[in-house]
């Protein structure tokens, strides 16, 4: 056996030190969606756009966002995102962009696109790590304020922002923010492209005007189709049933309230004095006057159990803002050419104390696929095939349906199979609605499904926010919404099938009209003009019979 060197506790202690968040990130960047160069570009765009839209909506501004990706050199791209939002106070810029886990969203429970305050700083850090270049930020908070431009980088060891070259600039924008990050990256088209992401964003946000300038210089405009800024979601306190023990201990320890009773009433939603008393009565040795900090040490677990066992009314649900049926259909119509648009917006429900809303939209049938329609005369006409976009969001005939997943209006681009939304689609019995489906698979139809989960806290399966975790309550609501759309779909499909059959029948009958005219012509020695007229009268008579029905 070779001699082994064992270390003492003191020696080990010498090697133990703080891990900075930034260091952690650079080693675990896949957790945040920066695992490959092309995904890094997409994630950066995504984070910047999410922030821009959140800021605009919070300020009640109709968002106008422009995204530009330009190639610096091979495998290095510059991503810039500009909005017309409220701008950022100049002294905050550094912290917002140059410090991980800094922001307003993590500590509050409110429906917003971003959640952790991780995203845009992480994108900036990724750029810095791969190219050494800082972020370039330009922002202006109002017409009377100057526009500021500065370079922001992150001290990765200390998780601290470094702001350089801060200066006032001329900017024709009255307010807004522009972020520019240079990073190692790759550009792709297709299902996971920036363009697809923006297009899906346009579907779920009909009030947003988007412009995309691709690396090849081509410009894609996604025009606004609805003039209404969504209602601002209200902020709520956590519901007791959604609070885990660790969080409860944290809250007890840091509360400013001196008594347990007021702590419960003030820190949580849906707890009044009666409910607070009921909870406290379930724990031996605690009273409404107990000191929260002491409870945290001794009886927090008992208190947590007591909370779980006490019946507390469901959280208010007005804090979740659905897109709404009309807006979903407007969004679908804006980007997808289809025969049928359907949407369902479920009433709010609750998982683990968090209110949420499920919405489902359907775009069915590609208008190019030999569609039939009844004209005003009652004749069945083949609808001419319209010009199709190069990028078709509706599945081709014979392919599984295309899924468009959204969480708080943000498109989810990856990990489709890990998502509860996908599972709910598979668990729906599509055959009952006239759509074919193999067991345990997505249905096969020329269809796109729009699925949206909105919540004050969307339970993602990971920090990269690509799939929603499997909560029974969410699954159930998804099934209900999908079934409702399925019923509408069935009506459409069977109507179309009827039309198809009717068309075949009519064509079949019409085939024989010339023969009838010919035979009558032979027997009664009719001229060919009269025979032609016969065919015409027969056709007219058939049409009249159909109209009667």
């Amino acid at each position: 056996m070779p001699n082994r060197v064992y270390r003492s506790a003191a020696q080990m202690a010498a090697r133990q030190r703080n891990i900075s968040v930034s260091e952690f990130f650079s080693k675990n960047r896949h957790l945040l969606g920066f695992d490959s160069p092309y995904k890094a570009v997409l994630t950066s765009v995504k984070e910047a756009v999410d922030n821009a839209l959140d800021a605009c909506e919070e300020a009640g501004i109709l968002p106008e966002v422009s995204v530009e990706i330009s190639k610096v050199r091979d495998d290095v791209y510059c991503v810039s995102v500009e909005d017309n939002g409220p701008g950022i106070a100049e002294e905050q810029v550094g912290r917002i962009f140059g410090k991980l886990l800094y922001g307003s969203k993590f500590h509050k429970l409110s429906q917003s696109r971003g959640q952790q305050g991780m995203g845009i700083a992480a994108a900036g850090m990724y750029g810095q790590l791969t190219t050494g270049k800082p972020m370039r930020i330009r922002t202006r908070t109002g017409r009377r304020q100057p526009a500021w431009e500065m370079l922001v980088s992150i001290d990765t060891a200390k998780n601290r922002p470094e702001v350089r070259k801060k200066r006032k600039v001329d900017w024709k924008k009255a307010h807004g923010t522009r972020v520019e990050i240079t990073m190692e990256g790759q550009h792709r088209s297709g299902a996971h492209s920036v363009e697809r992401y923006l297009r899906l964003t346009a579907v779920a946000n009909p009030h947003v005007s988007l412009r995309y300038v691709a690396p090849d210089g081509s410009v894609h405009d996604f025009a606004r189709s609805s003039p209404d800024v969504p209602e601002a979601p209200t902020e709520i306190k956590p519901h007791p049933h959604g609070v885990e023990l660790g969080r409860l201990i944290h809250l007890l320890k840091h509360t400013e309230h001196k008594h347990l009773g007021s702590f419960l009433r003030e820190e949580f939603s849906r707890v009044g004095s009666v409910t607070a008393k009921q909870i406290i009565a379930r724990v031996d040795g605690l009273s409404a006057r107990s000191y929260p900090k002491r409870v945290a040490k001794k009886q927090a677990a008992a208190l947590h159990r007591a909370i779980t066992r006490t019946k507390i009314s469901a959280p208010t649900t007005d804090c979740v803002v659905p897109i709404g049926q009309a807006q979903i259909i407007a969004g679908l119509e804006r980007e997808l050419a289809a025969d049928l648009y359907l949407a369902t917006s479920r009433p709010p429900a609750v998982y683990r104390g968090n209110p949420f809303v499920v919405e489902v939209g359907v775009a069915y049938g590609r208008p190019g696929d030999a569609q039939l329609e009844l004209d005003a005369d009652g004749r069945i006409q083949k609808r001419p095939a319209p010009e199709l976009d190069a990028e078709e969001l509706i599945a081709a005939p014979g392919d599984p349906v295309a899924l468009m997943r959204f969480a708080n209006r943000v498109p989810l681009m990856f990990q489709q199979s890990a998502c509860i939304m996908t599972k709910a689609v598979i668990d729906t019995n599509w055959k009952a609605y006239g759509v074919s489906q193999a067991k345990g698979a997505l249905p096969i139809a020329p269809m796109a499904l729009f699925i949206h989960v909105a919540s004050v806290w969307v339970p993602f399966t990971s920090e990269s926010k690509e799939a929603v975790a499997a909560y029974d309550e969410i699954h159930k609501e998804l099934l209900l919404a999908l079934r409702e759309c399925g019923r509408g779909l069935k009506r459409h499909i069977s109507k179309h099938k009827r039309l198809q059959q009717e068309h075949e029948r009519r064509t079949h009958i019409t085939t024989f009209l010339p023969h009838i005219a010919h035979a009558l012509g032979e027997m009664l020695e009719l001229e060919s003009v009269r025979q032609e007229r016969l065919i015409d009268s027969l056709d007219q008579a058939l049409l009249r019979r159909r109209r009667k029905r």
Partner: protein
Amino acid sequence: MASKKKTPKKSRPRSRAATATPVRVLENAARSVLDTVERGELPVMEFPSRSLSNVRYSPQVGFFQLGPRTKRRALRANSAKTFAQTLRLMALSKEMAATGDFATKREAYYVSKNWGECRFTEQTESDAVMDDVEALVSRDGVFREQLGFVPEEHGGSVVGNLVVREQDPETGRTLSVDCGALGSGAYTVPRNVEALTLESNADFVLAIETGGMFQRLHSHRFWRKHRCILVELAGVPSRATRRFVRRLSEDLDLPVFCFVDCDPYGIANIYRTLKVGSGSSAHVNRFFAVPKASYLGVTPQDIIDFELADATHPLQAVDIKRAEDALKNDPFFRAHPRWRVAIEQMLSMGVRAEQQALAKWGLNFVIDEYLPRKLAARDTFLP
């Protein structure tokens, strides 16, 4: 008997008097469709229902005929093709009737192959449509042969006191065939008997099942001695034979006696079809049935009376089934108690006897003994 002077009866050709009728009947049907269409309505053609459940029999009428039920053919998805085919087949037959041409069912089927998507895919389809057309025009007294559709099979052989006249289609000269001057051969009934002029001074018609028996009676000039006309049925008689016998029976007012095997097939198929027609041809039995025919033999009673018991064969299962079916389902036999008795007698004896069984008593027993004895007691003939 043969020397007795008698004025021959004469029958004019049927077709000449009715030349215009088949064409006009078809034209009328076509005109009614045309008028409907030109009024801006959808045409519907109505045909007698040829379903067996629509077949009626009453002894007063004397043959199977169709009841009042009809079926409609309209421009619907499942009938538009047949509708058009019906009209095209009518157009074909109008042309044939007008020009005097003809086609067999098989030929008509092949003519349709030039009709594009309107063509028939199986001959059974064109046969069915033809039957419908025939049922339609039969209401106006027209049948298929007059439309130019002739059967594949020719008629049986005829000899005896009969002169058949017709015109040579080429020269227009009248040709006459004396069926009593044919040597050992016989006159063959043509497919279309309407154009024939028939002349006879016979007393009756003897319709015989088998060719062998026909030949025996012919060779011994049975028809001369008994002043009759012999017709060979050759199994279940063809349309031509039936129509020919019908004209002899009706136009010349001759009694028709049927001489067939004593078995369910001879009785329930051959004789029954000759006399009252069949259910599947109920729409034309009015032209083909011979209601005045009666059954000379061989009867079950003959087996006893002529001691033929040791010349019989046991009834086969198929015979018994056919006999029981006749008793149970055939409206003709159900309407005639004497037939029920006779068939039940055959079933109880459990045997069948062929015409040739009479040869047990000598080859010419049938000529010398059997037929004279039977003809002398015509009231024993079964109805």
